[in-house]
């Protein structure tokens, strides 16, 4: 199996996420979903929901 790659994170709440990866902030959940979808389309990657309001974009 090929390795997965975490490309970016989209979040509303900045308390959950820190580190050396691209982090995109959004103000509302709709904006968050939209930004995540756009990023995923651009990167041909997939959006996953961590369940705590953080979306990660992963290339499979």
């Amino acid at each position, binding site marked *: 199996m090929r390795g997965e790659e975490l490309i970016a994170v989209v979040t509303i709440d900045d308390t959950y996420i820190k580190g050396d990866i691209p982090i995109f902030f959004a103000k509302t959940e709709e904006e968050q979903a939209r930004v995540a979808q756009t990023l995923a389309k651009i990167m041909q990657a997939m959006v*996953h*929901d961590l369940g705590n309001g953080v979306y990660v974009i992963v290339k499979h």
Partner: protein
Amino acid sequence: MEKYGLTISLGILLGTLDRLYMLRSDYRQYPGYPHGFVTHVSLGFIASALGAVAIPAIVEKQFAAVTFLALAAQQFRDIREMERKSLAALEEAELIKRGHDYIEGIARVFEARNFLVMLTSLATSATMFFFGMPLLSLIVGIFFILLSERLMRGRVIGHICDVDAGRLHFKGPLLMVEQIDIMNVGLPVMREKILQDGLGIIVKPKNDNARATIHNMGQRQAIAHVAATILGSKKDVDTPEFTPLVRKDVDNGQIALFIVPAEKDIESLIAAVERVPVLESAGRAPLKSKAGRIASD
């Protein structure tokens, strides 16, 4: 040469017919494009020529000719290599991969068919040589053609497993088919789309052998590939959410197929999955060992 004319030509004729007959049933495994067709018929012709001359060669005490049969076997191994390479190269362009196991299976089939062709032409020419009756040798040839078709018919998933429809639903962001997790889908729009257009299938192994077989990732990839080939798939390069996936229930060994087909038809999907060939390289039979039987109850 003249006295063996009929023996050899009947052998070649029936052998080549055998190869043609087996090409007919190929479309599922391989798109029948004209050049592949020509290649395989030509190689089938060579194989049948080798089978047909074997007996006259022995009778004429041309034992060197018989050693050519060994050379032929080598040739046919190259066919496997050729098929494997070309399918592996084409795999790059497949959105839903065949997988190495399926490719290996197809390549082996192509190799084996040539040996069956040799057998058919050998049997035909032997009948002609020993009994001298062209009609009888034709009948024997046709019998062997039918036999080789029978021999090449492997088992399919429907023989070893029960295939049923499974309900697609979400547990939070987690997509599930009945009790089996498939994947985490983040975007609400994609979740809606999946519930609207997706289909789920549950494959229940009939015994421990079947469970071990569908445990194999190559076998599971083949199931996803065949399903997507027959029903189409809405997946594109930028929608990995629609990738057909096959995942296992770790507790009971059942597997679930998730697919977003172009044609949403559950009956057709069940029929397609039931017809997926059981790959030679994936087949396992733990029940054939004593240790496996102890664990089976």
